[in-house]
């Protein structure tokens, strides 16, 4: 399983490196959407600073959808889906591999996005480790749940639009918990944030297990 996961993650990341979709499309779109939120909420730097963690994670959330769509698109070539199914790879490995690739992309994205946020909204993380742990857990959760639902919508011709419908409500708790944890990290009150980690951790763990168990049947079904 682990071997297969590495294989699949390697392949997805290599394709990403070659096509640069995430780099040139997902990252700038995320940064831009931060700017747009600023636009939508109007001027007032203080209000923005307060909303910053929410907006940050909203941008990450929508990027997750984009990244997952891309991850699904890689396998949706006319023949490639069949290829993956008949390749003999352990479905759990496929799941872990694809999720890992998405997680790596999201991690890179967050670094860029964080820099942009610091610049645009003038906010600073006071409790670095809290933000980091929250980010790590949230990233895992997003990648894992996104990949699982990506498989549900893969192979459907309507995947571009079905995926967000299915995946956004699932990811909503992450949005909530991660933004609250970041708000605590920004405000410098770790105690308030730690309780949110208790949501993020189980979320990632539950979907990880669900994915490892259920990805097989899904791949079958396609």
């Amino acid at each position, binding site marked *: 399983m682990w071997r297969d996961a590495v294989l699949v993650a390697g392949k997805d990341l290599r394709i990403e490196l070659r096509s640069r979709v995430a780099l040139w499309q997902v990252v700038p779109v995320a940064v831009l959407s931060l700017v747009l939120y600023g636009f939508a909420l109007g001027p007032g730097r203080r209000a923005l600073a307060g909303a910053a963690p929410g907006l940050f994670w909203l941008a990450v959330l929508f990027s997750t959808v984009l990244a997952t769509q891309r991850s699904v698109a890689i396998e949706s070539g006319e023949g490639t889906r069949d290829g993956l199914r008949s390749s003999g790879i352990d479905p759990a490995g496929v799941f872990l591999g694809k999720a890992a690739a998405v997680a790596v992309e999201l991690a890179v994205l967050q670094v860029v996005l964080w820099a942009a946020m610091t610049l645009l909204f003038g906010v600073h993380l006071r409790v670095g480790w809290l933000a980091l742990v929250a980010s790590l857990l949230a990233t895992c959760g997003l990648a894992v749940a996104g990949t699982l639902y990506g498989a549900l919508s893969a192979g459907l011709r309507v995947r571009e639009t079905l995926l967000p419908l299915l995946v956004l409500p699932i990811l909503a708790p992450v949005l909530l918990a991660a933004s609250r944890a970041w708000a605590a990290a920004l405000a410098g009150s770790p105690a308030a944030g730690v309780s949110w980690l208790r949501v993020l951790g189980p979320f990632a763990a539950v979907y990880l297990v669900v994915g490892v168990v259920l990805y097989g*049947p899904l791949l079958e079904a396609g």
Partner: protein
Amino acid sequence: MNARSSTPERLPRWIRATGALGAVLSALTVWLGLWVTPPDKVQGNLVRLVYLHPPIAWVALYLAFGLAALSSLLYLWRRTRSLFWDRLAAASVEVGVVFNALTLATGMLWGRPTWGVWWTWDARLTSTALLLVLFLGYLALRRVPATPEVRAKRCAVAALVAFVDVPIVHFSVIWWQTLHQGATVLNANLSPTIHGSMAWTLLLGFVALTLVFVWMVAVRYRIEVLADRTGALDLEVSLEERWAEAAAPVGSQAADTEGAGAAPAARVER
């Protein structure tokens, strides 16, 4: 298995009985709720929504979505795999979506006078709304054309994943301080903080809606079976049409005659 898949032309008696009983008990609940039980000290007559709103929510969350999750699990588990579970899940999700929407509706009706607003961004409310969307997604997935097995698998996974939100809804009042009522009945030590005729009316309301739920699921399940059966009839028809293609297919004469001279044809024994 046979007993399950055979459907009488009329609704079985027990289903009709359940439906009737559910209707009678619902009427009884309304009567008790509106006239017999006392008004609340704080809320006045508004409290009477308590006999409707929590039972509806429980039926949606625990009965409907619980049953859907359980049957999905049983479908995914190889040893119990049968389309019975898939249909059951579909039926109870559909009913659950109705009850979930009713939960929102009654809650909003209640919220307007008590909180002064139809809607607020409270964790319980938002997670309940998300639950509705999640299962609407399930129904959207069901509409995507696929073979029954493929659809069943896909939807079973979706139901299980969506069900994760149910505990979140339940515990939302504990995890986050919310505007919404904390657990009064289904609390941790299972000792309801509600008493007397109110408690009994609430219980009755729950039983009544449960019966209504069972009736609705049974009817919905039967529709599913009938639909599948017409689907099966279709299959017979389309199989015959497909065989007929062999008689006068596009250009198959050429495929047949060319090279046929090379060797005498050995027919397949059937």
